[in-house]
Structures are given as C-alpha cells and as structure tokens.
C-alpha cells in the first residue's frame, strides 16, 4: 500500500471516525513498520468496536511486531472468544505456541486457521512443518477442502550438491538413506533417512537430534567429562551412531543391528571426514 493510499485512508477516518477504515489503515501502518501509529489507530478503533474480533487481531499483530507477545496473546485470545473461527487469531496464537515450544497446541490452532481460511498465507506450510516436528503423518485428516497434500509422504529433497556437483556422502554406503548431516538447529543439510516402512523421516529425526546434541553437550560439561565425542544407541532393529564432524554440525549413521557399533564408529569416522570436506567446500 502506497503512502498516497494511507493518506486517503487517514482522511476517510478523519471524516468518519466511526468508519471501519481503521482496520486497513492500521494494517498498512504496521506493514510499513510505523508501529506506534498503528497501535494508536488499533486502540482508537477498539474504543468504538470493543467486540470486533478483527480489531483485536490488528492490535495483536502490532503488539507482536513490537515484541510484546504476552499482550499479543491476550488480544488474539479475546478475538477467539468473540469469533472462535477467526483465522488470523488462530494463526497468531499458533505461532506463539510454536515459539514457546508447545507444538501440540501450535498445531491445534494452525489447523483451525487452515480450516477457517485454507488460502491463508503460509498456514499450510506451517501446519506441515509442525506435524513433521511432532513426527505425525502430515494432515492425516485434512481439515478442509484445498488442504495441501501430505508432506511426509513426499520424498525428501536431495541434499544440496557441492559447487562441483558432489553430494555430501557421495561414494559412501547409505549416502541417501542412513546417513544424515544436520546443523545445530536441527535442520538437515545433507543425506537422508527412511523409516522401515519407507517413509522419509530425515527432517523429523534431525529436529529431534538437535536436542540430543544439546543434552549430550550439557551432560558432558556438567559432569566434567570434557567434550562429548559420540553417542551410540542400539534398538531392537537398528544401531545408530552420532558424532559432531564440526562444532556446528551433527552426523547420524543408522544401520541394521547386524552391523556392530564398533564398525558403525569406523563408518561414521569416514562419513564425518566427508562431511568436513563438504562443509569446507560449501563455506
């Protein structure tokens, strides 16, 4: 929205202070980063329309931009009491729960936002992302027509190649399935992993491994064991081995449980070397 548009809206509001034009005007000011002005417009609108969910949603978005997440939550909460299907409020509260780490509640609100407004910007992607972080089948029960297709059923994109075209674990056993390279934030940066039923699970596992990385680091530090070098695990059907090729990356190797942990350690060492070379090349 241009400055001229804002000027027109401002004059409309001045001519008719009871007009609902404060909604697009406040939103336009918010998008331009004029948060103080946007907040004043929203508050003025709310004095006239205290029961208008859209007005509370506008104020919540402004407060969110100002970093006042508690008040933003309160405003979205009011908006939902006034209109339990308000897509913007569900989206906002879903985002706040996501930021707070409460993924089940985040998912609940994001799915409600998607159901109320299937075309809402970014909501379908957010639902898929949270479902994957929760390791749930993506959109198992589609909330509304037009929902995006299940994400977890799609093959994971191939890892980014080096400038020369080589994938990170090229030439190693399980380069695309059973070797995973991720960053400290739990984002997959190379390799891939499938569940026994063939579902691609690399991204979901990577998200959880970031927590293992933090917990292992914390345990070794607080117990005065020095830096951790590896975490090995045995399940009834697989053995896994984790190590950190660099201080900012983590490598997971998963093999059938017929492969002993000792051999996994050797394979992980080779994969870690490949990862280091790849990361240096990609830097």
């Amino acid at each position, binding site marked *: 929205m241009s400055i001229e548009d804002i000027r027109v809206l401002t004059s409309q509001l001045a001519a008719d202070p009871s007009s609902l034009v404060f909604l697009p005007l406040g939103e336009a000011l918010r998008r331009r980063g004029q948060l103080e002005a946007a907040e004043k417009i929203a508050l003025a609108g709310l004095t006239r329309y205290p029961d208008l969910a859209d007005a509370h949603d506008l104020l919540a978005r402004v407060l969110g931009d100002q970093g006042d997440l508690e008040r933003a939550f309160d405003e979205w909460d009011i908006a939902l009491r006034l209109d339990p299907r308000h897509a913007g409020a569900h989206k906002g509260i879903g985002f706040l729960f996501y930021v707070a780490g409460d993924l089940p509640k985040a998912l609940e609100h994001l799915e409600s936002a998607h159901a109320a407004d299937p075309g809402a910007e970014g909501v379908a992607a957010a639902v898929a992302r949270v479902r994957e972080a929760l*390791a749930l089948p993506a959109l198992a029960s589609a909330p509304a027509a037009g929902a995006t297709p299940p994400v977890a059923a799609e093959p994971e994109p191939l890892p980014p190649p080096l400038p020369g075209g080589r994938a990170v674990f090229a030439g190693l056993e399980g380069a695309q399935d059973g070797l995973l390279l991720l960053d400290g934030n739990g984002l997959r940066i190379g390799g891939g*992993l499938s*569940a*026994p*039923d063939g*579902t691609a*699970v690399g991204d*979901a*596992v990577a*998200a*959880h*491994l970031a*927590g*293992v990385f933090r*917990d*292992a680091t*914390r*345990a*070794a530090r*607080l*117990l*005065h*064991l*020095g*830096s*951790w*070098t*590896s*975490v*090995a*695990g*045995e*399940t*009834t*059907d*697989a053995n*896994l081995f984790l190590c950190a090729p660099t201080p900012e990356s983590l490598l997971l190797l*998963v093999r059938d449980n017929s492969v002993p*942990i000792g051999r996994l350690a050797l394979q992980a060492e080779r994969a870690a070397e490949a990862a280091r070379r790849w990361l240096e090349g990609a830097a």
Partner: protein
Amino acid sequence: MRLDIVGSLESITRVRGVRGAMIVSAEEGLVVAESSMEGIDGAAVAALTAGVVARLGRATEAAGRTAPAFVHLQAERGALLAVPAPGDLLVVAVTDAAVNVGLVRLELRRAAEHLA
C-alpha cells in the same frame, strides 16, 4: 530385592574403569539406588543421563524405530552408559574414558534383568 539391586550395582562397579553405577527413574530423572558414586553428583548423573536417553528415544521414535536398548555417550574424560529396565527405570554407569564398554554393557543388562 534391595540386596539384589545393590549386588547388581556392585557387579557393575567391579568392572575396571567404572566410577559408579545407579538405578534411575527414566521419566523423572531421579536416583533410585546408587553404588560407589564418590566424587560424582548422583542427582546430576541421573537427571542428565535420563535426559539424553529420553531425547534419543524421541529421535528413534521419529525414525520409526524402537526405543534404545543401550545408550553410550562417550566424552574425552569419561562415558555414560545406560540400559533401560522394567518399571520405567534405567541402569546407568559412569566410567573413565578407557573402559571395556562391552563388559559394562553386559553387567548393565544383567542388572536390568534383575529388576524384572
């Protein structure tokens, strides 16, 4: 039963390089029983080891696998080894860096079986 547990923990701590062993409640991360934990903060070992095991369990679950039946965190100056036991428990050993991991794993499993 209590003597059995103490005996099992002592079998673990008899392995050369093992500094201490304990039974931990897996969900709460609290010490249930411990042996030879001198110089080691048992409450910290229990809480931190249970944290690593739970987190790794969530990763294996996301991978469509079962929960880990053995976990080994190796660090520069020591290691933590854990085996789940019935009743939502973990048998945990704190060791020096150089230790016969296979032997400790065996004793941890024996102790876990005693808890059945």
